[in-house]
């Protein structure tokens, strides 16, 4: 954000040839190689053999079981990334995915406690989406009515959400028959998401991919998407052109929150089956980074979500094969993100 006084040279298409895909690929390769090199140095410092560790990680990531794991990890990430992408188009920073995911899961679990039968699952999904939307709505209402920045409030609400969930599972919703660990009673079979035939993957991934396509279509091909982009580009101009900026911001954020809430509830009904501390494993934050890695474009964000899911699953193999803590993989993820973000992206002219 340093201010530049020297005029930025304007790239003329006549003089400077368009940088080829080869150069871009080179930068990507260089960035990734740099990240892996630093990670290897750290592994050596820890006394682990980087070659076998990384090979083990890749091998285990491509086994059938791991691929199913990756898909299941990616499903909520894709939804939560869309929860960042959609508001970002209107210029809103939704750092509150984590809280919205938690509240989505809490709302789903709450419905699961009282409703049974075939209606339970659809109602849970709806409740999750509404819960997430409510949570995002709190932040965006403060923005639209009194002008408090949404990045700050969504971040704060993440912690409130976590406390809400912990409060519920330590007291009112605690499973009396459960083991010592505080958690809600597990969902019944009919409340869980069905599996895709012949796999261990739950149907949430279908929902996530459909949502991503819907977001892409909305942003790309609808008037609403265009209005969001205008608002995000220049809110003042949008206002003068007669757009109802407040309502647009509100809608974008509510939809985003609903997507994040849905992420929470499919994670609950597809993988976890009960609320417990540490339920979300940073889904909201990782999804924020996935969305950002993809420069807030919906379909690349899906790819980024899958990539980060793969890295996270690779972390579990680190623990099993090399005896390193699973959270070690956060180092690799962060290094790759830093490399990609700092050294491959087009420099913004701002």
């Amino acid at each position, binding site marked *: *954000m*340093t*201010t530049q*006084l020297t005029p930025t040279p304007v790239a003329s298409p006549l003089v400077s040839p368009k940088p080829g895909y080869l150069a871009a690929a080179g930068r990507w390769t260089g960035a990734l190689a740099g990240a892996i090199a630093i990670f290897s140095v*750290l592994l050596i410092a*820890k006394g682990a053999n980087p070659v076998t560790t990384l090979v083990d990680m890749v091998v285990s990531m491509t086994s059938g079981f791991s691929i199913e794991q990756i898909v299941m990890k990616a499903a909520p990430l894709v939804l939560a990334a869309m929860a960042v992408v959609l508001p970002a188009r209107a*210029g809103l*920073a939704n*750092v509150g995915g984590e809280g919205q995911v938690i509240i989505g899961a809490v709302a789903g679990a709450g419905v699961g406690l009282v409703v049974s039968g075939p209606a339970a699952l659809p109602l849970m999904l709806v409740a999750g989406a509404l819960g997430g939307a409510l949570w995002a709505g709190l932040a965006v209402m*403060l923005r639209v009515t*009194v*002008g*408090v*920045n949404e*990045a*700050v*409030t969504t*971040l*704060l*609400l*993440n*912690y*409130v959400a*976590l*406390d*809400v969930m*912990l*409060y519920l599972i*330590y*007291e009112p919703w605690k499973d009396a028959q459960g083991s010592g660990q505080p958690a809600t009673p597990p969902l019944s079979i009919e409340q869980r998401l069905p599996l895709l035939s012949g796999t261990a993957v739950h149907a949430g991934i279908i929902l996530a991919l459909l949502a991503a396509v819907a977001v892409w279509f909305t942003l790309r091909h609808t008037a609403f998407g265009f209005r969001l982009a205008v608002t995000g580009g220049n809110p003042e101009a949008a206002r003068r052109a007669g757009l109802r900026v407040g309502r647009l911001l509100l809608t974008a954020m509510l939809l985003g929150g609903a997507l994040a809430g849905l992420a929470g509830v499919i994670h609950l009904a597809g993988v976890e089956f009960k609320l417990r501390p540490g339920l979300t494993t*940073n889904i909201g*934050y990782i999804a*924020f*980074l996935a969305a*950002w890695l993809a420069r807030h474009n919906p379909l690349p964000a899906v790819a980024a979500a899958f990539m980060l899911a793969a890295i996270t699953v690779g972390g579990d193999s680190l623990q099993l094969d090399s005896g*390193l*803590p*699973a*959270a*070690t*993989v*956060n*180092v*690799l*993820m*962060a*290094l790759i*993100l*830093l490399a990609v*973000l*700092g*050294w491959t*992206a087009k*420099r*913004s002219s*701002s």
Partner: protein
Amino acid sequence: MSDLVVDVLTGAVRGGTAIMFAALGETLAERAGVVNLGTEGSMLVGALAGYAIAAETGSPWAGLAAGAVAGGLLALVHAVMVVWRRSDQFATGLTVMFLGLGLTSLFGAAYVGRAAPGFDPVAVPLLSDVPLLGEILFQHDPVTYLSFLAAPLLWWWLRSTRGGLLLRTAGERADVLHVHGYRPGLIRGAAVVAGGALAGIGGAQLATAYAHAWFEGMTAGRGFIAVSLVIFAAWRPLWVMAGSYLFGAALALAPALQARGISLNQFALDALPFLITLAILAILGRRTLRAAPEELRRVFT
């Protein structure tokens, strides 16, 4: 009743100190125009470095210094990325947080459950005998006494020194620095690194004086609390100090009540400081950002 108040206030100082160091660090960075969500990561690496070096050398002071260095080094990553590579501040900060989380889990496993010498409470002669205040303020560990000085010192430094003026100018009107031949990027980078060092000290205090232990993710969101605290305090160091004790008091209230047989759900109380901050933001509304450094406001739009 009065000893409940004393308990809670003493606990507020005890629990608020680590947050205060981190929030003062964040104040430095933000006054120079950079938001650093990586503060959480700086606290974590500071906590591990502080605890590990204290365990290896036997000196908690060496640990404290190591914590500052580690926190500063991690913040250097953020500084390089946002100042020189112009990457997005929120995303980079989160990435740096994950880097800190991963690094400490990689290198911290060996120190889980291991004993290390830490800071013990030292009663200040005379002052600790003052009724009420003595107990609340002057029976703490030495790092807490340092924190009493840190906030006023930072306030004075920002307000009355040449360095403080340069830092504030980098956050308000970087162009002016350019015109006068300074490099705003360098000043910002230095502010971010110094802020990370302060967060590292906060983390080291948490591990060696507050918890007397190291465990993975032990900062539990205190770095993020620090970031929101700075906004709550409208970027003023003395208000940061007050806000830290507010958070500390919320942490201390439930155990203090429980000790008196009143059972309260800890998590309802934990949410309280966040709700108070949200309420204050809602009441102040647009005025909160009006108090923000000019260059910072661009980050927030």
